[in-house]
């Protein structure tokens, strides 16, 4: 029907339509309900809501990370985490950032998968996709708990200076599934810690 951003425009159109249509019963009731829908739609979810229905934002490279994402999604769903990502939108860069923010805001956890996206001049070393970095920065800015999974061939300078103090897990081509389980466990621990903090408030 329409993309998330179009929703509010659609609601506004409907309000105008109702006002102009004399055949509609209970105009006020219907208008009020649409206003309520708008408010609910734009409301920021509270921390409590975010923790009660925990969602994990997974950042990955469309080129080299799809298969890893697929496995991560399955593993996270098995632990009853909802999974979101920033994919599935065409448009300008500004639209993309807005789209990613809207998908990330209801999440409380973040999993970044750093895969071999750009070959570096040094032998057997790679840089990850730029979007994974951008999304990780956004996640930190939005106070999501961050866990990173990085391929062994990612050069240190592409993750260590920024993420060394965060939880990061190295994987190889052979042990991804095992390391993924560690990452999911870390995310579950982070979630449990957040819940504990919330209850202690």
């Amino acid at each position, binding site marked *: 029907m329409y993309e998330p951003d179009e929703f509010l425009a659609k609601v506004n159109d409907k309000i105008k339509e109702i006002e102009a249509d004399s055949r509609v019963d209970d105009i006020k009731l*219907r208008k009020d309900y649409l206003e309520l829908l708008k408010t609910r739609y734009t409301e920021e979810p509270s921390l409590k809501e975010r923790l009660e229905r925990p969602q994990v934002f997974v950042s990955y490279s469309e080129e080299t990370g799809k298969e890893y994402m697929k496995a991560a999604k399955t593993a996270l769903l098995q632990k009853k985490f909802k999974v979101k990502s920033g994919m599935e939108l065409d448009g300008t860069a500004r639209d993309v950032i807005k789209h990613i923010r809207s998908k990330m805001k209801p999440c409380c956890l973040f999993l970044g998968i750093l895969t071999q996206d750009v070959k570096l001049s040094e032998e057997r070393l790679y840089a990850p996709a730029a979007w994974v970095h951008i999304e990780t920065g956004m996640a930190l800015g939005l106070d999501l708990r961050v866990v990173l999974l990085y391929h062994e061939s990612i050069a240190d300078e592409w993750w260590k200076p920024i993420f060394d103090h965060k939880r990061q897990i190295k994987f190889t081509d052979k042990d991804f599934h095992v390391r993924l389980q560690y990452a999911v466990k870390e995310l579950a621990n982070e979630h449990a810690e957040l819940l504990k903090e919330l209850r202690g408030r």
Partner: protein
Amino acid sequence: MLTSPHLLNLEETRIFVPWATGHNPLDDRLDCWLYHSDHSSHDHPANDGTNNEDPKLAEFILTPIQKDYWQDVWEITMKAAEIPGILARLTSLLGQEKINVILADTITCDDSRYHINRLVVDCLRYRSPIDGDFEERRTLDDASLDDLRRKLIVEFIKELHFLSRLSPSLNITRLPELWHLHHIRGRYREHRLGLCGGTVALPPKILSELPQGYAKSFGKSIHELVKPFGLVSIGGRLELMRLSIVYAGLGIVDFVVTLENHAGAIGRLASVLKEKYNLLGFRAWSSENEARSACWIVARSKAKRLLPGQQVLDKIEKLVNGHKELRSDRPAFDRSVSMLLGG
């Protein structure tokens, strides 16, 4: 949620499926799927292949919805103004979202001022940033289609009936029984049954194999495994019927007890019976101008040794009539209604 438990003699009576009307030429064309757990070690659903001391009864599921859809099947209900084209708009919008209508029941109501629509849909190909995709919904027990509901409310805001200021009559809920069945049971055997006048019969092969399956589970000294009965209940919605196959010879009987209609009487009866019997089915109504409560009960003896049905009934009658806890409730035991024992 299950409702209306009742017994059917499966040799003499066909099973009326609740999603048929029995009066409509469409009834014979409706789908009816029969499922039972696939116990790999034996052919009999009654026998789970273990030496369990509390053998399970064979349960069958009857539904018009094939198992492939169970994980992502939803019910949409909408009451809206009776305006030509409203169903077309609804189904067309669902089509745009790649949502497939499996069943549709719609009818005009309230002096043709409103129209009630009830659709059962499969969402296997539907995805939204908020409602997620099939992969997500099939895993999460608290999945919802809030995004779809919100969009439909906006589309139909001019026509929707409102129950109150905050309650538009448009709801989307999962068919939880089917989703749950898919998760608690692994594999199923599937049979497609033909409907006739809205009724089906169990395949004779299943009926003939069941006694052997029960004999393996319950031991060889089974009496009265003559007539198979179905203990039937209908799911919270019409699209699910559960059917447990019972025999009087398995220490299972049915009877009626009436009691004074006062608070706690039914609880006391259930409490007295539970010591020695598992209550497989229980229905209670008020009777005699609400002066009494009538309870129909299907009970299974917990005794290790299997007893003939008449002996089980004798013991229950003695228990109910003689128990001091029930004296003030003036219980009256009626075995004449027992279907399992030919009443």
